[in-house]
């Protein structure tokens, strides 16, 4: 029987590869590979052999040119050894094949800066939004409430009732767009999958620290129109078991953490549609 295969791309400053791979396994992927970027550039590992790409959190190239900028440049220009193609060709082929990409934190920054999100009307590789410095001017590690848009096309959020409680850990997470029309299209098409909200998931908020970075319209996560590509600043892979919750010693919580559902839905989608 065919296997659901996930890949976690690492190297040059990614930091969350181990827990992301762990979440993929718990979520139901039959096989999860942590691949160093050098394995991809050498041609030893090819994206075509996988169904789900995880672009994880970290500080790609130290975020030296702005978060994930150097990696976006690398992916655009780097050639794969022994193959007559650039890595970007493998990536666009992957998207065209209807496969899944989840970018978290630095991975979300990468997707936005490469133009993989929101990619309105399928215009991939055209950047129309960005993630920039938090309004508070500082890196922050704190937990946030994320109200879900249950009408979004995201394939990852099936079964999420009101929202998720997850940690955010970033200095450049303020979502902004190039023009009002982009924001209008994001809202109209329900691409803003999660928004920072109050603890009851009642309404999006611009209030610090509930909204830790000042993102426009409190946007914390974004998907494309197919729902198969999604990026988010908070870390779903960091809450897959109750002991990761900051108040697990005082609250009655289910064994499973809020973030796991995204990986379960990804695995299920792959099994239903791609195998």
């Amino acid at each position, binding site marked *: 029987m065919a296997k659901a295969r996930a890949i976690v791309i690492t190297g040059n400053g990614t930091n969350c590869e181990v827990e992301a791979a762990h979440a993929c396994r718990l979520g139901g992927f039959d096989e999860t590979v942590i691949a160093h970027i050098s394995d991809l550039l050498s041609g030893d590992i090819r994206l075509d052999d996988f169904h789900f790409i995880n672009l994880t959190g970290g500080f790609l190239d130290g975020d030296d040119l702005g978060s994930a900028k*150097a990696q976006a440049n690398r992916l655009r220009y780097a050639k794969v050894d022994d193959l007559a193609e650039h890595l970007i060709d493998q990536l666009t082929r992957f998207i065209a094949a209807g496969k899944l990409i989840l970018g978290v934190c630095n991975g979300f920054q990468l997707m936005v800066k490469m133009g993989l999100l929101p990619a309105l009307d399928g215009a991939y590789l055209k*950047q129309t939004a960005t993630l920039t410095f938090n309004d508070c001017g500082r890196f922050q590690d704190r937990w946030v409430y994320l109200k879900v848009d249950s009408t979004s096309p995201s394939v990852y959020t099936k079964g999420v009732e009101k929202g998720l409680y997850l940690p955010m*850990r970033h200095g450049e997470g303020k979502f902004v767009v190039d023009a009002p029309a982009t924001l209008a299209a994001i809202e109209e098409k329900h691409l803003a999958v999660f928004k920072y909200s109050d603890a009851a998931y009642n309404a999006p908020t611009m209030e610090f620290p509930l909204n830790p970075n000042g993102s426009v319209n409190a946007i914390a996560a974004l998907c494309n129109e197919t729902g198969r590509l999604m990026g988010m600043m908070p870390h779903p892979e*960091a809450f897959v078991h109750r002991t990761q919750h900051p108040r697990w*010693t005082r609250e009655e919580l289910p064994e499973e953490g809020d973030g796991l559902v995204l990986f379960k839905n990804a695995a299920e989608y792959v099994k239903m549609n791609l195998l």
Partner: protein
Amino acid sequence: MARRIEIALREGVRDARGERIKREIEHFLHLPVDAVRTIDVYTVDAKLSEDELVKAASEPFCDPVIQVWSIDRPLAAGFDFLVEVGYRPGVTDNVGRTGREAIEYITGRPLEAGEGVYTSVQYLLKGGLSRTDVERIARDLLGNALIQRFVVLDVTEFAAQGGVPAYIPKVQGETKAQVRDIDLEVSDQELMRISKEGVLALTLEEMKIIQAHYRDPKVQEGRRSQGLGAKPTDVELECLAQTWSEHCKHKIFAGTVHYEDEQGNRQEIKSLFKSFIQRTTKDVREKLGDNDFCLSVFKDNAGVIRFNDDWSLVFKVETHNSPSALDPYGGALTGIVGVNRDPFGTGKGSKLIFNTDVFCFADPFYDKPLPTRLLHPRRIFEGVVEGVEHGGNKSGIPTVNGSLVFDERFAGKPLVFCGTAGIMPATLNGEPAHEKSIKPGDLIVMTGGRIGKDGIHGATFSSEELNENSPVTAVQIGDPITQKRMFDFLIRARDKGLYRFITDNGAGGLSSSIGEMSGECGGCRMDLAKAPLKYPGLDPWEILISEAQERMSLAVPPEKIDEFLAMAKRFNVEATVLGEFTDSGYFHILYGDRTVAWLPMEFMHEGLPPMQLPAKWTPPSHEEPTVVAKGDYTADLKALLGSLNICSKESVVRRYDHEVQGGSVVKPFTGVANDGPSDAAVVRPILDSFEGVVVAHGICPRYSDIDTYHMTANAIDEALRNYVAVGGSLDLVAGLDNFCWCDPVTSEKTPDGEYKMAQLVRANQALYDVCLAYNIPLISGKDSMKNDFYDGATKISIPPTILFSVIGKIEDARRSVTMDVKRPGDIVYLLGRTGNELGGSEYLALQGAIGNSVPTVNPEKALKRYQALHQAITDGLVASCHDLSDGGLAVALAEKAFAGGYGISADLGQVLWKGDDAARTDTALLFSESASRHLVTVRPENRDDFESIMAGNCFACIGEVTGEGTVTVTGLSGATVVKAGIDELKEAWQSPLREL
């Protein structure tokens, strides 16, 4: 020709960086400023086509949604003054390095030798500022003149010049490979001049030992065979200075101490290290017998203990004080990425699982004059916090535990402790992973960063007090990404068995790492001309001792070298063969074909006789303050909660990623609003297991003013009681000692050396006594012995400080306990007795007093109680547990209550007392810092089980958790002595450092 690419924010885009600078100018420099905007500048000194340059500017350098770019056209507008801050030549420019790589991806070719990309930042200031104001802003806030250069222009000058001219901070130099012979056949005075002017930090006695060595006819004959003269080369002298530096050799801890106690009893101690530290571990291991869990102690870069059958834990804590005093950001960043290399370079290498940080600063709000060379404590605070933030976060290692300690004397030198733990498989390719060896014939390989002039004389300069002339080159800036790339590669090379031995390049650079490695097999032959350099112009001695960062040294078997180098290339990591290890008995250094150093291994490592150190203990006597009894202590409690050593450090801690790697179980903050202070951290390093690692620490320098014996005993106890509070097991817990002392060697500059040395002896005595009683083996540690400032007029010595860290295990992390009260109706127990021990307390410090009755530790009793508490925690009987430390019972009650969101009512009449009943007062009961106490809450239905487990120990039920959100304490007279809402208590605790 150099080209300037400028990147500015689009109009209307918020400039968070500029806003922060504006706030800091107002807050710290009290200067009025209307607005600050920033512009990033890339100075590209490379042959690029116009098209390539446009691509670089518009793609990787510019974010088109929020930024605009220009080439050779200034973007600055709408300002009164402009300050551009860039690096001085040779200073690590991480953004420049990344920019260079980005260009190389675009062009598909590497930049040529000598080409480069350099970054700077423009600050556009608007407001009624004078040039003097702006120069002050540049100097005191925007940059550090040691490593950075400034251009200040007003709007007229800017227009006249047509912007800021391109400047290339390139190191100009040509390779001369000069080796000088140093004549040591000179007067004593001249010998000392050579040592002092060369920043060798060698004493006259040491210089004379070297002089004698070179006089030896046998030595001279050997040298002739290598084509060397009778005089030492600069390479040799520098190498000996590094190897023999206090920093590398720990001469004070290895010396012979002549100790006299207060009764006149004399004792000769041959090596404090062997007599106390090593002996502690040896005796504890004997006591543990079959349950000994130590695997590798003292001999490697970090200590190694058993975690379970499959995994071992590695831990090390370092200090980086002197560099942080000169360049707080770079010094601290280098501190954290530097200590990362210790566990990574232990055994065959370990994966890093968490960092810990403890900083000791002077008051950031300090407003008195400071000696010129000292930076303001607030700058040190800001820079250190940011350096460690970048180092830890970018390396993907969670910062799980730490603290901030304040004392005015840390203005003389801040203490920056950085710790890192790792985990390694118990065995690798069939061999124990914590062991390694070198065979003659193995190749010397250096990986990672290139060598520059950065960090030259770091080891020797930190072996002296900080002074006017402390060398600029001792400052380095770490590069976490280069290091991370190297680690990604090396961990894979480790698993494939591609090397036999690994160690880090820290203090002393190659002279130290290869010197020590050569000790493993008996010699080496290394060619410095093969070493990759950042820029030309380094002399051989500089290459040998440079402390340029992000480098590891390895021994690679010749049959594995091709595979090793090929893998390095694939991972984009530089790796260079520099020579080979031998069994010649000589540290043999060449530059090309020419021998530049020929040092017998024995002389290098064993040539130094022990120092002779007098020590005399005269207990200090402080004025005994009159403690006034009050009817209401609520105001005192609030003042304590707001004191720097007790107040919330959340604004700092939130800047550190404490959850990356996904194993976080007990976080730095806990409770109903995620803002109560945890006692210790618990992490799960293996995500599909519930076995946890527990880490905690203790530090209490204030007690040194009374007696360092008790300072040390309390630090150890504080570490262990924090560890026990969250659920750490007493069967598997190891300790690390970090000594930070003021110079204890009697000299003109240090007339009170005998007293300071006696303080050191007493600290060591406590270390042995208390660790042995607690069964804590010491597995690693570090000493930093010259934490003084002296400019000829002012001398500032830090209080002798021990940071004691513990690492251990909790069998099931799901049994961990946090400090916050959980529900109304729970019973509050105080474990341990309280005595009249206000000496050195925060309470007395509030009144500007020290006192004399320092808390004492009774480790036998405490251990028995800790074991019972651990049993109760393991049985799930403990709802919350918090240790009592700074501020005593009153502070612990308040913290527990506001963290949990409920009130507590407590009765001081129920608190168990030790000592004279006459001294039993509300003040002592509330604020005494008696050791070994915990405040625990238990559900009523667990009362009997809890009390039966605790039976036979000192503990008392002192109150209960209440629903109304008020902390109420009844005094001995039956009247209420503290009453305050938890919200106001929390506010008092959170407000002081909220804005930093």
